[in-house]
């Protein structure tokens, strides 16, 4: 069976000539959770966005189940992938239940099916439908919004889930709660997950594989325990920098390890 996602010699250069991805190759097996870490500007988000073609690579290929993403129908490709971002991007004019089911609405599925699915998913992410379904996004807390964002990403039951710093804006307690919830959920759902994070602890907790990026290049791709025991200088350097950042940020995990080049 071909890998669920495969990057082949992927490069991306901005219009200004900055190389954000540099000959990046990696294969992700179906049903695995891969955490992509690295400093700000290392190309993590760009890499994630090549998968659903929000970014078109300037060189190389992305293969989804062995088929070139470039050749795929763009709308169908995107509907087959859940997408969760830090800012949530919830639609402020829709109720929570409509937000969650928007992909199904776009596919023209009947209303009863949409609402049923929406309520099931809300329950799955820990939001009581009777309480939350009819609310609007501005009536939710940050953690609740992120849960809705996750439910929305799962609506069409996509085999692939792309998550870009999903909990980056949350306070440490809410963040830990969300990580627990996501871990349970992923263990049950068996999705192929690509998770971009600047939090090493989050990567180790959720990821079955850790991928370290630096200046758009693949530095390491290994299991969490291998990663922590590695003597590779870049890895040791990254872990050290992360922990220093964590201490100077007073334990605030959110700031740590990033934005301090």
């Amino acid at each position, binding site marked *: 069976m071909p890998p669920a996602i495969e990057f082949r010699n992927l490069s991306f250069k901005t219009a200004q000539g900055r190389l954000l991805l540099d000959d990046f190759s990696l294969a992700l097996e179906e049903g695995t959770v891969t955490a992509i870490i690295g400093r700000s500007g290392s190309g993590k988000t760009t890499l994630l966005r090549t998968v659903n073609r929000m970014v078109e690579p300037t060189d190389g290929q992305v293969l989804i189940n062995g088929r070139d993403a470039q050749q795929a129908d763009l709308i169908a490709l995107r509907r087959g992938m859940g997408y969760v971002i830090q800012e949530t991007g919830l639609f402020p004019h829709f109720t929570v239940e409509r937000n969650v089911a928007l992909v199904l609405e*776009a596919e023209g599925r009947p209303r009863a099916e949409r609402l049923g699915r929406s309520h099931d998913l809300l329950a799955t992410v820990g939001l009581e439908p009777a309480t939350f379904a009819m609310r609007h996004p501005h009536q939710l807390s940050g953690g609740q919004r992120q849960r809705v964002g996750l439910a929305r990403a799962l609506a069409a039951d996509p085999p692939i889930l792309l998550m870009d710093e999903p909990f980056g804006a949350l306070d440490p307690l809410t963040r830990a709660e969300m990580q627990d919830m996501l871990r349970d959920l992923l263990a049950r759902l068996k999705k192929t997950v690509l998770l971009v994070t600047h939090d090493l602890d989050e990567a180790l907790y959720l990821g079955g594989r850790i991928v370290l990026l630096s200046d758009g290049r693949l530095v390491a791709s290994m299991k969490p325990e291998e990663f922590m025991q590695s003597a590779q200088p870049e890895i040791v350097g990254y872990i050290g920098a992360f922990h220093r950042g964590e201490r100077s940020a007073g334990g605030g995990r959110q700031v740590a390890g990033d934005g301090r080049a």
Partner: protein
Amino acid sequence: MSTRFFTQYGGQIATLSLEHLWLTGAAMLFATMIAVPAGIWLTRAPGWAKPVIGAANVLQTIPSLAMFGFLLPLPWLGDRAARIAIVALTAYALLPILRNTYAGIRGIDPAIVEVARALGLTGMQRLFKVELPLAASFILAGLRTATVTCVGIATIAAAVGAGGLGELIFRGVASVDNRLVLAGALPAALLALVADAGLGLLERWFKVSA
């Protein structure tokens, strides 16, 4: 103003008010049909935004009396004064609607637009389910500005014989009869206020809490 004045002019005030409303309403309809799609197109081709909005801006700066004068000798248009008035008013209404449509859609939180794309919404679905609803109150604000402006400018249309409340004003000025001037000006002001309040309500109703 005495009751005699009203019995004499009441019917005329009503007819001219309706005429005024018709000129303005028709112009707003045309302007919306042109400026909203154009504004949407500009969000897809932002390179054109500056020249196109600039052109609408230039239209806006033409003095209204001159605009009516320019249109007068044109074939077909010049045949009927109402046509001239509607074309001129449409031209004045373009800018606020165009600018607000463009700015309203461009001003949507980029994260929302990004997710709408990433979820696999088609261009049309994005427009009708996300962008237009979120920009609606902005677009209506442009419509409101345009309407109020046009109700005022429409009084000048009487100068080319297009009718409307301006007719009473011009007649009043010519015969130095302030009552006639007021008989035209007050209903015109009232129309503007009502349009402003009505569209303002609609605008608030469409406003989305973030």
